[in-house]
């Protein structure tokens, strides 16, 4: 371990990496603080760059970017009442009201420190839980991987917000797209319409750029977000006040951290959902809970939810690194990059590439510490960040979408795929279909199919193996629990309300 760690430190201590991390951090803050541009969009547009970097800087850039973007999403919530990323949506009302009452600096400062500590907490959970889980995962065979992937698919649908029928359809679309190209069992070309370009399947990266980048541009120009002038905030003594406030609510913060890490660990659920759940828990546990989101604004829900969304970012890497099953959309994109770079996530990563893994851990903690100075500057310069006009920004994003997809394979096919997925993403969002399950379907589809086909060919269609192997059975039961989550949630809710009348 010590050996790996010292090797990891020497890998991390390079100018190239520092530069990449710094640039990715600034980029993440910029995208995160612009309403409507999500951290997933930032990841999709970052991928073409990451594609050309070595594995470690590539991973580091995505980690740093996502950590910063999730925090920066708080900035427009407080200033113009629009969440910068969906992960900040839970507490937008409270932040904005605090700003109106002259306490915006406190709201943002507390958000910054809660995000940083939450991120470090999630990072520590990753560092300690991942190697343990990896030991279990080493015993996995194709049966277990099949179930883990199914668990990811189930979680993606059940835990996503909104209609579950629509979530399932979104997932099926992703799964369908993943079947295009040569099939895995006999090499038969599926849905290629005779085109040899499609034999290798639909490239994941341009699909993501379209789904999250171009579609967002289309949405922004069709219904432009209302122009709102940001309220100026006084940033004097910001960090000191924030630190003492956070200390007063340390229980709430730790609660948020735990909830965030737990939800982030689930395959398919990330920071957005973590923030909503932590908000609800904080609300239910607080004396003034029922006034949250109204009145002059409350700092406590910001502490809870802001601690949770960044903790979720860290623990989302647990299923990604241990099983190769992404924890949320950003890690799904990262997984796509890793596979292209020849890094196969999974338990063997913990053995064969331990130094790389430890470097990832170090980057995680470092990124969250770096967030404090960068975030501080962002809060001070927030007025400027929000003044970049859409008319200039949107065409620039279009240019990056086009070049980014082109550069993956130096081909126009990828640009076409990007365009089609951009239009598809717009239509799906318009009809209230969630986009995240599409990505997870796209990434997990081949894993499900490969492990299923391998298993059944190996045993000549003895399906009982999926149920009778002890670990398979355990994973299946976990899947069923997730499937029953909506029912359980209602039951638990009723039980608790019964016990503790408000």
């Amino acid at each position: 371990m010590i050996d790996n760690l010292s090797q990891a430190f020497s890998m991390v201590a390079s100018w190239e990496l520092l530069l990449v991390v710094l640039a990715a951090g600034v980029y993440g803050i910029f995208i995160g603080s612009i309403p409507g541009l999500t951290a997933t969009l930032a990841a999709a547009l970052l991928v073409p760059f990451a594609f050309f970097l070595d594995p470690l800087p590539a991973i580091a850039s995505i980690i740093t970017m996502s950590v910063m973007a999730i925090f920066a999403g708080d900035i427009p919530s407080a200033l113009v009442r629009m969440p910068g990323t969906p992960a900040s949506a839970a507490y937008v009302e409270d932040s904005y009201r605090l700003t109106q009452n002259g306490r915006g600096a406190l709201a943002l400062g507390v958000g910054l420190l809660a995000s940083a500590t939450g991120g470090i907490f999630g990072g520590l959970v990753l560092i300690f839980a991942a190697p343990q889980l990896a030991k279990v995962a080493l015993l996995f065979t194709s049966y277990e991987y099949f179930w883990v992937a199914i668990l990811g698919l189930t979680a993606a649908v059940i835990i996503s917000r909104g209609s579950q029928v629509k979530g399932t359809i979104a997932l099926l679309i992703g799964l369908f797209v993943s079947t295009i190209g040569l099939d895995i069992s006999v090499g038969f070309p599926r849905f290629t319409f005779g085109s040899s370009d499609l034999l290798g399947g639909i490239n994941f990266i341009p699909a993501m750029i379209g789904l999250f980048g171009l579609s967002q541009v289309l949405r922004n120009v069709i219904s432009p977000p209302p122009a709102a002038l940001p309220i100026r905030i006084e940033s004097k003594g910001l960090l000191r006040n924030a630190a003492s406030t956070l200390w007063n609510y340390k229980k709430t913060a730790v609660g948020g951290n735990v909830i965030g890490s737990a939800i982030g660990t689930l395959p398919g659920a990330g920071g957005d959902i973590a923030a909503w759940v932590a908000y609800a828990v904080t609300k239910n546990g607080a004396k003034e809970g029922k006034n949250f989101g109204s009145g002059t604004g409350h700092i406590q829900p910001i502490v809870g939810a802001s601690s949770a969304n960044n903790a979720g970012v860290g623990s989302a890497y647990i299923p990604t690194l241990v099983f190769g099953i992404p924890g949320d959309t950003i890690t799904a994109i990262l997984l796509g990059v890793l596979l292209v770079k020849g890094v196969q996530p999974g338990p063997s990563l913990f053995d064969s590439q331990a130094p790389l893994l430890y470097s990832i851990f170090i980057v995680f903690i470092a990124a969250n510490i770096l967030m404090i100075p960068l975030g501080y500057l962002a809060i001070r310069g927030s007025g400027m960040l929000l003044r970049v006009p859409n008319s200039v920004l949107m065409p620039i994003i279009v240019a990056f979408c086009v070049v980014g997809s082109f550069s993956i394979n130096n081909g126009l096919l990828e640009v076409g795929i990007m365009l089609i997925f951009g239009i598809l993403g717009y239509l799906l969002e318009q009809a209230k279909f969630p986009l995240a399950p599409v990505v997870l379907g796209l990434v997990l589809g081949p894993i499900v199919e490969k492990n299923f086909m391998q298993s059944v060919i190996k045993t000549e269609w003895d399906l009982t193996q999926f149920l009778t192997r002890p670990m398979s059975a355990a994973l299946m039961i976990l899947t069923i629990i997730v499937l029953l989550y909506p029912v359980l949630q209602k039951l638990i809710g009723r039980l608790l309300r019964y016990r503790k009348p408000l």
Partner: protein
Amino acid sequence: MTFDPAPEVEESVEKPENSYDLASGVVVVVFGSAILLAVHDYPTLPSGELGPSLFPGIIGGLMILMGVLLLGRWFNDRKTVRPAKAKPEAVHWRGWINASLIIGAVIFYLLVVDFLGFLTTVSIMTVGLIFRLGAKWWVAIAAGVLTTLVVWLIFNKVLLVPLPLGFWG
């Protein structure tokens, strides 16, 4: 304690989402059927079991099922849910034209980049779009050309992507 604190604001006010359910349900059912139709004559495994068609077949089947569920929901809700009120916001012709122009710009790139080259094509795209989206003409030219040059430098010089030169090369 309930875990779903988010009665989505838009949803509780009116339910515009329902108006899409009919159309999306039909599309999903048709698409699922098309998949089933396409995979029915795929080859089987040497041992005779389903091979390449199994997975897409399941996807197609589930799509039909989910599409029917969606249609069922639409049918159930169609009376109880108020139809989205005639929206006060006028039809956003401007927005739709801008969106078509963005899609057009990407198609423009696909069609002419091999001939005009990257620098010319992307300059035209970005300058045109920035101007169209409401910036002043000199802002559009400056920002568009600058963006193109920055993108060119990053991708062609730093990342070594062979961006098309067109007739310049």
